[in-house]
């Protein structure tokens, strides 16, 4: 039983660390802000969640201490992670950060153009 619990904990924490490492590599390698936002808003969320689940299982199964605060932390990460990614990309686009040159299609530029004209922002 302890072996099973331990392997569960090791599995979750190593998956989480793997995803966090991938996030870091992505932040260095990817060419522009928008593609980096992908790496940061997805892999980081799942990575931290997996680490937290591993910690939760460790305290629950090994130390016999049920800690609901960790579960609440996972829920809050779930809610706030994507909102952060959305707000950062949106404000950068409106502030005029240029997408990477390999970007094949841009439906958003005319919409932002129109919005700025309407509100009288340069």
């Amino acid at each position: 039983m302890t072996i099973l619990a331990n392997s569960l904990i090791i599995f979750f924490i190593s998956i989480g660390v793997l995803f966090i490492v991938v996030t870091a590599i992505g932040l260095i390698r990817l060419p522009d802000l928008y593609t980096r936002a992908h790496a940061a808003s997805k892999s980081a969320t799942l990575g931290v969640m997996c680490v937290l689940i591993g910690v939760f299982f460790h305290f629950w199964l090994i130390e016999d201490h049920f800690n609901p605060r960790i579960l609440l932390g996972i829920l809050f990460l779930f809610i706030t992670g994507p909102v952060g990614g959305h707000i950062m990309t949106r404000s950068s686009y409106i502030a005029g950060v240029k997408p990477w040159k390999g970007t094949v299609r841009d439906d958003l530029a005319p919409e932002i153009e129109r919005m700025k004209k309407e509100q009288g922002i340069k």
Partner: protein
Amino acid sequence: MAFQVMLNFILALVWMFLSSNFTAAGFLVGFILGVILIIIMRRFFTTRLYLARVWAIIKLTLIFLKELILANIQVLKVVLRPELDMQPAFFAYPTVLTRDWEITLLSSLITLTPGTVVVHVSDDAKVLYVHAIDIGDVDEAIAAIRDSFEKAILEVSKS
């Protein structure tokens, strides 16, 4: 939905008082009896049975977890590829959802799923502008979102 849930709780409380059994087990028995009563009396409610909506929420959660894991595997592949040959794109996604919470939920789900981040929601909330990290075919991406998430959210919000 809220009314049916409240009714179910009140029925459970009534059962606890009837059997003068004020424990969690007594509450559970009362709750199950209340569910049976509500199912029998379902044609008196104008909205559909709340259990159907609970089931739709569970299904949405499962779809979401599956997509989240797929998203991360995709990002992992893109990041660890030897040369960067992806084709990012901004595309417009027209949505049929109308209420604010539905659109918020849809954007959060899109942001956490394979290769897409919502960048902007148009002022009339009819079009979502999505940034895709590697676009093979826009129509395919739109169809994928529409078939999985939008349908599941509509299933939840249907009255």
